[in-house]
Every structure is written in C-alpha cells, then in structure tokens.
C-alpha cells in the first residue's frame, strides 16, 4: 500500500489493534498502520467494518473514514469480492443478482407479500454527480 499521512492525533497507543477482530485471526487491517506508521504488512481491504477500533480510540480518530478514503485511492487493488459486488450493485441495484420472477416465487412460497426490485440502473444513476456540480 502506498503511504498515507499518519494522523498527528494518533497516540500510537495500539488500542485499536488489540480490539480488532481481524488482528485476532492473524490478519492486519489499517489499525496496524495506526499503531505503527512504518508497518507495511497490512491491507486496507481486510477491515470488517465493525467500528470497534474507532469506538475505542482515545485520540478520537476517524479511522473508518481514513480507511475508506484510502480504499478509494487504491481502488485498483480491490479484491475480487469487492469488485464483483460493486459491479452487481451498479448493474442491478442489488448486491446479488436475482430476477423479479425468482423473488416473487420465493416470497410466495414463504407466504410473504411481493416486493418490487428497483430499476436496474438506479445505483449507476444515483452515483453520477448532478449536472449542476459537474
């Protein structure tokens, strides 16, 4: 990962590392870098979005915000799972593709009222900046 400016407010106390579930199974998420700005053996894509680090951080650092900004900067390094899921959202407005017919059948079998899926291009349209600010 390319370097990110280390936030000055970080006390390097390491608390974020001790509460991180990814660290507990031997992976290294962004918190590794927070506790040690020279660390290189981590990936910004490993975080599970549990927000425990941020909730525990005595420096009040927006760890999650930093991590997300970092991901966007390095989107070409995104793991396949992330890329495929994002493509699905853009193509179907849903994280997993399902047809209206399949959904109708499944819900009917469970005795649930039908639910209409969104127009397929809805996410793409919402994620396009409005002309006024382009």
């Amino acid at each position: 990962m390319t370097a990110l400016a280390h936030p000055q407010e970080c006390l390097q106390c390491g608390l974020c590392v001790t509460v991180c579930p990814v660290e507990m199974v031997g992976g290294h998420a962004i918190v590794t870098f927070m506790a040690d700005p020279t660390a290189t053996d981590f990936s910004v894509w490993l975080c599970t979005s549990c927000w425990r680090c941020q909730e525990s951080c005595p420096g009040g650092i927006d760890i999650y915000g930093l991590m997300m900004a970092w991901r966007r900067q390095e989107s070409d390094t995104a793991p396949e799972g992330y890329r495929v899921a994002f493509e699905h959202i853009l193509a179907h407005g849903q994280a997993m593709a399902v047809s209206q017919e399949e959904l109708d059948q499944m819900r009917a079998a469970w005795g649930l009222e039908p639910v209409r899926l969104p127009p397929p291009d809805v996410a793409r349209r919402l994620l396009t900046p409005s002309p006024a600010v382009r």
Partner: protein
Amino acid sequence: MSTLAFYPGCLVLQRMPEYELATRAVLSTLGIELETVQEAVCCGSPVAESFTADWIYLSAYNLALIERMGHDTVVTICGGCTNSLARTARALQDPAVLSEANRRLAQFGLTVAGRVTPKHLVRLLTERLDDLRARIVRPLSLQVAVTTPCQALRPDDVMGFGDDPLEPQSIRRLVRLTGAEVLDYPGENECCGATLYLADSTLSLKAGRRKLEAVQEADALLLGCGNCQLLLRRFQRFIIRDRPSLRKRALFLPQLLGLALGLPEESLGLRKGVWLR
C-alpha cells in the same frame, strides 16, 4: 395497530425470508405492521463506500422512498443497512449534501428532507420491553450465545440508543425475557468476520471458527444480522469441514422471541418440533 416502513436490505430480502417472517410475526403481536419499501436500492454496505464517497446517495434514495410512503421510522434487521441509513440521515443534515441529494433524486421524481429515523429491530424491541414481557406465554429453557450486529450499534454518536457500544446489553435483555439463558463467552462482543469474506475468505472462515469454538456450550447461536447468519450458519459447513462436531444451530432473535410469545413455529420460519419439546 401502527404501521412502520420496513427495509429488509438485499441480503435478507434474497436469502433470509425466515428472518423477515419471524420479524413480522413478533411485531404484529405488539400491534406493529411493516410496510416494505418498494424498489429500494442496495444500501451498498460496505462495498459502495469503498469505491465512492457518493455512496450516501444510495441510502438517500431509500430515505426519500420512505418519506414518500409517509413514514418517519424505518425498521431494519441487518447491521450494515442500519448503519448506512443512519449515517446517511446524519450526512443529510449538511445543507450542501441535502441539496446535492435532491438534485440526484429529481430524475426519479423524488425528494428527501432527512426526517426518517432508521431503527434496528433490537432498538425497536428494546423500546417495547415491558410490552413484550407482558406477552411471554411460553418460557424457554435454552441457552444461547449472542452475536451482536456490530454495525447497528456503532458508531455510537450516530447509532446510539442508550446501549453500551462496546459491551451492548440490549440483546441480552431481550433474550432473558424469554427465559432463555445467555452464554458468556470470550469474544462475544467481537465482529463475526463475515465482511472479511469479500477480501479474504480463509481469514473470514478462521474468524467464524473462532466464534464457533467459543460458543460450543450453548444450545444455539442467536443472530440479529444477515451478515452474521451468512458466515456463521450458511457457511458453517466450510468452517467445520475438518471438525463436524462443532456444528451449531442458530436462531434469529425474533424467532427466539416468537417461540416465547407462543407463536406457531411455521409462522417463524422454523421446522416443527425442533425447538420445542
């Protein structure tokens, strides 16, 4: 009878109809009907936010649909959806964000004011604790291990509803109403690791294994999030491939509550005779 909007999110909508069924059954005993948001878009969590800072306009669209339905509360049953909707509602308090959202929504004939409060089922039920207690007719003798829907509780400054964001008690309180016991286990308040699956399936299964090993004493896992169900129940067969004895049953929170409320198993999406003897 009161009616609230309901946003199942795509994971629950497409893969976990039993969770929706049980949620509806339990809420209807409290006099609450759920009206599903039609044509809702995926909240994007945590994927869209990883690629674009504009991710909030997905949830802004959903909030606009809910406003058009005339509701000011939307019930959610997945951690990720709750988090996205609530953080978006907060972001819409910035007038610049609000007007950009409305510019983007205009093409759909929608507007958003930002007046909707997203409430995870745990929060909604916690607000009706006494009401629920009064309706328990079938006390359960069962011990469950709670897995917390982390994203429905954190960040506390946005999601907060009076629970401790690091050692939450609300689900435990709801479980105890039913007579069931809550197992204390190491790592109870840690994320299950489901989202990690998108980036590294091996590590994710390892996190799931850690959870499963820690809850062996319990009769069942108790879930309040689609992501937890996905990893800990649906993918359980991959987690325990080399040690099938780790197998653990799972219940969604409203399924457990529904049993104690005396609701028929079928109405909770449960097979007959498995949980009640």
